[in-house]
């Protein structure tokens, strides 16, 4: 009787162990592949997501730059969930790495975590998305595009195009996200500043997601239809959603209102060439990832780094679309 109990229980243990093991073992191989052999600098990277048209190339460039610099990276993914991210930041601090790179999805929520990191003497670099000014005293540097400036550029371009009057809708990213706020506020505040008569009919949140943008655009087209003089999307992925919805509504793509996007994606370039898209602003995710890694490595080595390191922005319209490389 006792033999049988121990036999069955050990069999079950092995089965349960094997289940979890298979997950861990394959991952161990991955991380060994990513990290250079005996790098003495370890970096903890809290990224926005694993699979996303912009974030993924940024993560890949981050890893490649890390392999080149010979540093070890532990990567945690928030999957666009702020609460998970704040907890992951604490986990990072607990690992006592030489540096932390954080992709903030909220302008405020990470501040207590950043205070803890500063107390622990761990330098932090913010990648890609801005946080509020109060946060900046707890971080070593913020690398990434100036999203507010992108909104300003977009407002300038559309204001010139429409002759300072007309109706636009804004397809914004995730509510409460720093990039969304920067790109949207930069746009609306610049219009006010210019004294423009352009009216923003509606701002919808489509979470930087093509499908959600498609659904939101169907409603916008039904509601405003021919009254739309232009569309401003917080990124090219969502702009694509609007184009799809326009085609789906049975309207001709030749009549599509001018669309302003951001990111400089390949498909936006093709749409600009086809005359269905007015302009985009190129912001390279690879540049974004690489810059953050190099900055945190410098900071971890105790070198002085600039508090704000923007990545270069290029505006692309039909005039220069053939001369510029798409960002992704």
């Amino acid at each position: 009787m006792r033999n049988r109990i121990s036999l069955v229980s050990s069999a079950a243990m092995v089965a349960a162990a094997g289940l979890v093991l298979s997950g861990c073992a394959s991952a161990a191989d991955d991380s060994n592949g990513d990290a250079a052999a005996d790098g003495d600098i370890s970096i903890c990277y809290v990224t926005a997501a694993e699979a996303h048209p912009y974030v993924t190339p940024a993560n890949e460039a981050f890893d490649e730059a890390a392999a080149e610099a010979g540093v070890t990276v532990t990567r945690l993914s928030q999957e666009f969930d702020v609460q998970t991210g704040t907890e992951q930041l604490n986990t990072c601090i607990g690992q006592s790495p030489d540096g932390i790179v954080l992709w903030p999805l909220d302008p405020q929520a990470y501040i207590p975590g950043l205070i803890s990191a500063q107390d622990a003497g761990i330098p932090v670099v913010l990648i890609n998305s801005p946080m509020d000014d109060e946060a900046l005293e707890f971080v070593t540097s913020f690398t990434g595009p100036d999203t507010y400036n992108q909104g300003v550029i977009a407002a300038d371009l559309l204001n010139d195009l429409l002759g300072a009057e007309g109706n636009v809708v804004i397809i914004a990213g995730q509510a409460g996200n720093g990039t969304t706020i920067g790109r949207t506020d930069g746009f609306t505040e610049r219009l006010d500043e210019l004294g423009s008569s352009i009216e923003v009919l509606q701002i919808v949140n489509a979470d930087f997601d093509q499908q959600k943008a498609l659904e939101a655009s169907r409603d916008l087209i039904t509601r405003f239809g021919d009254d739309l003089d232009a569309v401003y999307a917080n990124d090219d992925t969502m702009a694509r959603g609007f184009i799809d919805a326009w085609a789906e509504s049975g309207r001709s793509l030749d009549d599509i209102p001018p669309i302003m996007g951001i990111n400089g994606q390949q498909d936006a370039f093709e749409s600009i060439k086809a005359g269905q898209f007015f302009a985009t602003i190129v912001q390279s995710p690879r540049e974004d990832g690489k810059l953050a890694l190099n900055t945190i490595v410098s900071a971890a080595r105790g070198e002085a780094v600039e508090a704000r390191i923007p990545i270069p922005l290029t505006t692309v319209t039909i005039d220069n679309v053939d001369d510029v490389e798409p960002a992704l």
Partner: protein
Amino acid sequence: MNARRNIFTSDAFHGLVRNRVVIILAATLIIGATFVPGFLEFRTASLGLDRMATLGLVAIGLTVVLIAGQLDLSGGAILALSGIATIGLQAELGQIPAAFVGLGVGIAAGAINGFLVVVLRINSLVATLASMLFFRALAHLITESRPVSGIDPFFGLAVSRPIGGTFTGRTLIFFVLIILLHLWLTRSVAGRQLFAVGSNPASAEASGIRSRAYLFGAFVFSGTMAGVAGVIQSLSVNTGSPVFGENIVLIAIAAVVIGGTRLEGGRGSALGTLGGLLTIAALTTAMEYQSVPSYVQAIVTGVILLLLILLDRTVSGSQRRDVTLAALWRRARSSRSSRITERTLHHEK
């Protein structure tokens, strides 16, 4: 004798299934300790538990709702709403009163759920799905879809920092509450009656238990726990956000179900929920330390959940047998002692 059937009906197999949380938790810890350097260090454990605390508070509420045979999907939205109250009212009311308002929001939201289910007799899945959408929309509406921040980022550090080098404030709060729940479910008459209500509300009513009051209370309790989670979560990050807690309810349900509480009601335990939470926390910590992508983590959690449900079904025909760890231990000891007696008799011969 049919060997296969023998295994599936043996006490050992039943014991394994009934105590599966302990076994999976042990396996997770062993694997974590093997692959992750420093996994069993106290600081890692403390951080891992901290990750679980907010989730755990929501799961405490859900344990009661599930035992009562109901479901509550609105916890995440209540968490966001009470966090917004806790942070957004700080400037007007002060930090402590605002936190109490946040708690009040949770209680009120729970009462709304209770009203929908008990008075209007709407199926709890539908009722809390609707209230989840409503509370979430309300959170976006009152904040204009933007996070609100508090007046002092240092104020909330108390809940997210280790106290006296042990666990963080919120972990300790969670531990106290889940132990209280365990005592209530196992030692009090009201706790036992909750199981009766969950098994069969009508027959519980017939035997003099006020089923509807218990159901209403379960939803108020669940809303309150989501409120507590919201207050603590928002204080720890000094932010109230309409997007907080969007994924938390489903993971909390997973933890509760891994812990052996059944969706059908009438069966479950607080310690099981604790085990389920610890399993998820240990898995998350182990896999994050190895940079396992989060979608792979979700696969592992999903597979464990399915495996446990299937195991549960294989023994569901004979739930009445006492195969808790304690009972198995007693049985093992008594069989050993009888064997020893036998041997002693042999010697004496």
